[in-house]
């Protein structure tokens, strides 16, 4: 039975339609001697080149301008982004990025400002940096902020450097760090880069961290704990204050991974939760475009006590003028060139100003409401390992589909046929066959209802026509890719000769 006969529903909802461009590699296009521009005649005499400087010949394709434009336009049509449809990628906060933020960041006075201009000519730029630091301090409840880190994991690394500098300054370096199994996956790597040995802390049966277990592991050789709150199960660590007190009592520090901040903007005060260092992902929570490797921004927010250790330079206000402060002797040093990823900072600044305090809080409330709505509407058909109110994302598993030998991967691939970017799958690791859905606040109720109806259809298909799922996606440019072969024998060269091998 063909796909078209069996799934009429797929034709009437958003999805991939009939117009899918084929497009070969650039080297398979064009014709010898074709060019995209006219190169003027050389008006200097030809000189011979030393043969040792020549190297091997580079095989550039010969193409016209329209060949190249069509090539990349066609490739872009195969792409899927948050501007194309719902992108419920858990833990990534793929919210819609309002275009006004792009417009502000592209303002010539901002976009063309040279980072080496003297301070007197850079007052607007420095004011923007200073005010963004202040905004982020207010939003998190913490005291001081560095905007330099370029991404979440870079923020974590900066935070761990601050831990290290703090303990060094206290005269007693420590060697271990506690990391729950519901923390973000990059946390252990960030700690290890600073010489700390990661000690795993198992979450309890309710998905929560148990303070007694933390107390049994915390000692005076442990630098602190790296918490992700809300954790990667989308649950709020309700006993975070108790845990922080246990860690502080032994002289340790508490790191908060703020990747899930979209659930708690204007709701949670990190300092009151006992957090000493927190990074924010501006490219998640504060609506700057991300994916495909960046750029992002992972500012680090700290308590007053840790302020001296922040990276330099920092934007400061002296009377009516703004300056870059370099002279902070206890600082961990510079972690990024110039002002960090400035364009990203401008977009986040624009987002915060356009939303306002109430707007940010409302965004978090709606993100949480949307996730809980999806959780409640699907928990009768998809297994919900932790059945309790969630924050901005909910985690299902494929346990109910095991009888039909349908895996989370199959359901995720089938979602593509219906025009959705799949959610995060097989993470967090504490749930077998995890499917982690984060709708964000961007989606309206009609679109969320459509998504829920689609997943319910897929669950029904799993029972009645499991092959539709095993063979998904069927309506895309390429079918199910051989991820195993791609990982074992990656082919990273775009030449036909490499493909022939």
């Amino acid at each position, binding site marked *: 039975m063909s796909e078209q006969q069996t799934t009429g529903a797929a034709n009437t909802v958003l999805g991939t339609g009939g117009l899918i461009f084929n497009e070969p590699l650039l080297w398979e296009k064009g014709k010898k001697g074709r060019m995209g521009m006219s190169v003027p005649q050389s008006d200097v005499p030809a000189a011979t080149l030393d043969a040792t400087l020549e190297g091997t010949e580079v095989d550039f394709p010969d193409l016209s301008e329209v060949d190249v434009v069509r090539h990349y336009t066609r490739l872009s049509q195969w792409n899927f982004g948050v501007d194309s449809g719902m992108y419920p990628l858990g833990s990534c906060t793929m919210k819609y990025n309002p275009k006004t933020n792009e417009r502000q960041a592209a303002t010539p006075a901002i976009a063309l400002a040279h980072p080496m201009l003297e301070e007197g000519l850079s007052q607007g730029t420095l004011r923007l940096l200073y005010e963004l630091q202040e905004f982020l301090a207010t939003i998190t409840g913490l005291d001081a902020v560095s905007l330099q880190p370029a991404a979440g994991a870079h923020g974590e690394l900066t935070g761990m450097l601050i831990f290290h500098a703090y303990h060094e300054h206290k005269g007693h370096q420590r060697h271990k760090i506690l990391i729950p199994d519901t923390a973000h996956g990059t946390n252990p790597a960030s700690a290890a880069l600073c010489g700390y040995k990661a000690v795993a802390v198992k979450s309890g049966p309710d998905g929560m961290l148990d303070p007694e277990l933390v107390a049994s592991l915390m000692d005076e050789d442990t630098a602190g704990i790296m918490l992700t709150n809300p954790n990667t199960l989308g649950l709020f660590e309700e006993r975070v204050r108790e845990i922080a007190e246990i860690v502080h009592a032994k002289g340790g520090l508490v790191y908060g991974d703020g990747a899930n901040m979209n659930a708690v903007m204007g709701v949670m005060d990190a300092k009151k939760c006992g957090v000493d260092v927190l990074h924010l992902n501006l490219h998640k929570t504060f609506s700057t475009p991300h994916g495909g490797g960046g750029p992002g921004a992972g500012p680090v927010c700290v308590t007053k006590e840790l302020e001296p250790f922040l990276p330099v330079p920092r934007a400061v206000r002296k009377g009516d003028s703004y300056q870059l402060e370099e002279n902070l002797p206890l600082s961990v040093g510079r972690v990024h060139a110039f002002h960090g990823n400035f364009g990203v900072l401008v977009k986040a600044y624009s987002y915060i100003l356009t939303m306002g305090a109430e707007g940010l809080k409302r965004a978090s409330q709606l993100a949480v409401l949307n996730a809980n709505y999806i959780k409640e509407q699907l928990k009768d058909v998809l297994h919900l390992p932790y059945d309790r109110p969630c924050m901005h994302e909910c985690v299902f598993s494929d346990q109910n589909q095991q009888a039909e*030998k349908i*895996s989370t991967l199959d359901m995720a691939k089938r979602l593509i046929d219906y025009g959705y970017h799949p959610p995060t*799958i*097989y*993470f967090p*690791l504490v749930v077998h066959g995890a499917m982690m859905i984060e709708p964000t606040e961007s989606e309206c109720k009609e679109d969320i209802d459509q998504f829920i109806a689609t997943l319910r259809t897929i669950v029904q298909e799993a029972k009645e026509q499991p092959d539709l799922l095993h063979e998904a996606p069927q309506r895309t440019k390429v079918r199910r890719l051989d*991820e*195993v072969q791609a990982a*074992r024998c990656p082919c990273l060269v775009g030449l036909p000769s490499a493909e022939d091998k």
Partner: protein
Amino acid sequence: MKEIDELLLPEDLGYTDDHEWAQKTGETFRVGVSDYAQDQLGDIVFVELPEVGDSFAKGDECGTLESVKAVSELYTPLSGEVVAVNEALTDNPELINEDPYGAWILEIKPSAPAEFDTLHKAAAYLEMLKG
């Protein structure tokens, strides 16, 4: 994915909660991951091995298995010193999927051989998997 009763669980091995196995080979023990572990991980695409001469305490992280689904740590079931690693896995990580008990990962000279007796027997491990 396999049903629980389709899993191969040889009788002479000791198993851990984290799904590693250990097998006595003379004075040393070979260590690998169980049929359940390889089945859950799916196609393994990369194995990070420890160095020969490294010493670990029971339960320490001693390597990494990467599948298309996830990256998982390997924990040593016994304390001791690594005396050999299975280099064949570097180029052919799929050997673990094909034969999880033939594809040993490392060989340990135990500092406390009696630890082996504290590992799960096949029947007890199967009960644990059934939950």
